[in-house]
């Protein structure tokens, strides 16, 4: 049972006063970002505590080259492309899946990787491609789907895997050194799979406090209170306030599945570029399920709009409304940059919950 919101707020205020200087904490997870905005938590924070929304939306960071590959494959008449709903509006260079679907392509929104396998079983004459995105929370479901397809010898099922690992992106942000961070509020449901242990290198190598928290307001505030305690004592540590669901070692069955089905490779994150060891590709034993191979597709270039500042937003260097495109040329219904694309993107959350106070259009 967490302490009440009022207690946590006054703890936070007292700690921030004692620390005195400005403190910057990155909330890594898109689910945290949305919860913080939805619950108006920013307004409750002491003036010297700034929250920076990190690269924690797997939809937003999917590279254009992968969206374009999905579009090219989905345009084939024999293909049924199955993916999570958030992916439909993400623009690649060649358009979006929503646009392609409107022009008659078969794009199915699914809520479970198992449904993609079921589609392949139900429609043996069609080629079902599962466009799989997500962090470690979601990747085990894809691994299980691949194993199921392998077990049943489903020749008409492939995966376009775009799964990403969270910690390498956090390390990259610290190595780049342009964001001054005092600590991380670490994602709850990613950590259910990976365990809290994965953040230990960030504490030991970089001296940054890491606190794993759930997505409820009391959890987020408790996570911040723990981080501020560490900052005041100058003792960065790994803590887990979401022990209800997160164990230090994570979910061993899920980890074993990931190790069997995937290999760790460098991956391109939209607006951030290539990050070593941050992606999951199919292991050699499962290459026959790789949609890029099956359809002989090659990945094209990425071409981000030069005026788009999503890369700086994700790095915490600017706030969304400091981008010239924000709420003008870039809106949730016509997104230019990745942070506006998904409802969990920083710009989309900002647009939905914070824009009225700041929009030059006053809309």
């Amino acid at each position, binding site marked *: *049972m967490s302490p009440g919101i009022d207690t946590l707020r006054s703890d936070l205020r007292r700690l921030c006063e004692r620390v005195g200087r400005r403190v910057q904490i990155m909330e890594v*997870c*898109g*689910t945290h970002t*949305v919860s913080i905005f*939805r*619950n108006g938590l920013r307004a409750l924070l002491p003036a010297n505590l700034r929250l920076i929304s990190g690269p*924690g*939306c*797997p*939809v937003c960071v999917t590279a254009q080259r992968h969206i374009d590959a999905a579009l090219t494959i989905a345009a084939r008449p024999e293909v049924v492309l199955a993916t*999570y*709903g*958030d992916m439909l509006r993400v623009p690649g260079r060649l358009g979006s899946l929503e646009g392609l679907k409107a022009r008659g392509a078969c794009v199915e929104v*699914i*809520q*479970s*990787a*198992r*449904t993609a396998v079921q589609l392949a079983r139900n429609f043996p004459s069609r080629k079902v491609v599962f466009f799989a*995105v*997500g*962090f470690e*929370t*979601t990747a*085990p*479901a894809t691994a*299980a789907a691949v194993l199921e397809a392998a077990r049943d010898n489903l020749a008409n099922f492939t995966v376009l895997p775009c799964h990403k690992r969270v910690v390498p992106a956090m390390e990259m942000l610290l190595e780049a050194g342009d964001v001054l961070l005092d600590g991380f509020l670490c*994602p*709850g*449901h*990613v950590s*259910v*799979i990976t365990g809290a242990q994965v953040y230990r290198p960030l504490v030991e190598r970089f001296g940054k406090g890491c606190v794993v928290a*759930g*997505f*409820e*307001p009391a959890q987020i505030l408790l996570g911040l209170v723990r981080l501020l305690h560490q900052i005041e004592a100058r003792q960065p540590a790994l803590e887990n306030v979401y022990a*209800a*669901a*997160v164990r230090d070692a994570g*979910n061993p*069955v*899920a980890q074993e*599945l990931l190790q069997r089905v995937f290999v760790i490779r460098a991956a391109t994150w939209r607006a951030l570029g290539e990050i070593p060891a941050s992606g999951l590709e199919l292991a050699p034993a499962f290459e026959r399920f790789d949609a890029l191979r099956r359809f002989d597709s090659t990945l094209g270039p990425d071409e981000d709009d030069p005026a788009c500042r999503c890369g700086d937003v994700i790095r915490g260097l600017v706030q969304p409304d400091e981008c010239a495109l924000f709420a003008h040329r870039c809106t949730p219904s016509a997104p230019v940059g990745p942070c506006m694309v*998904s*409802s*969990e993107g920083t710009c989309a959350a900002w647009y*939905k919950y914070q824009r009225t106070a700041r929009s030059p259009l006053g809309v």
Partner: protein
Amino acid sequence: MCLAVPGRIVAAAADEATVDMQGNRLRVSTLLTPEARIGDWVLVHAGFAISTLSEQDALETWEYLREISALEPAENRGEPDEAPLRQRES
């Protein structure tokens, strides 16, 4: 998209279970949570139970999910981040 939602296992067979989420029934895989039994609470993400959970923690989470669902303006419902609340059996 990393939101996982609690549900209670009401029926189970091999590595599949039927999970009750505040009245909605969903078939999920329990491949990742072999320890889960009928009556247990689990966190469900993308059709998979990814962790077991105490009843108290599960109910607190649902209380919060109901609160934000009620607070959210009607025009905003139905967005992808709300989807798990209304997930249908698939």
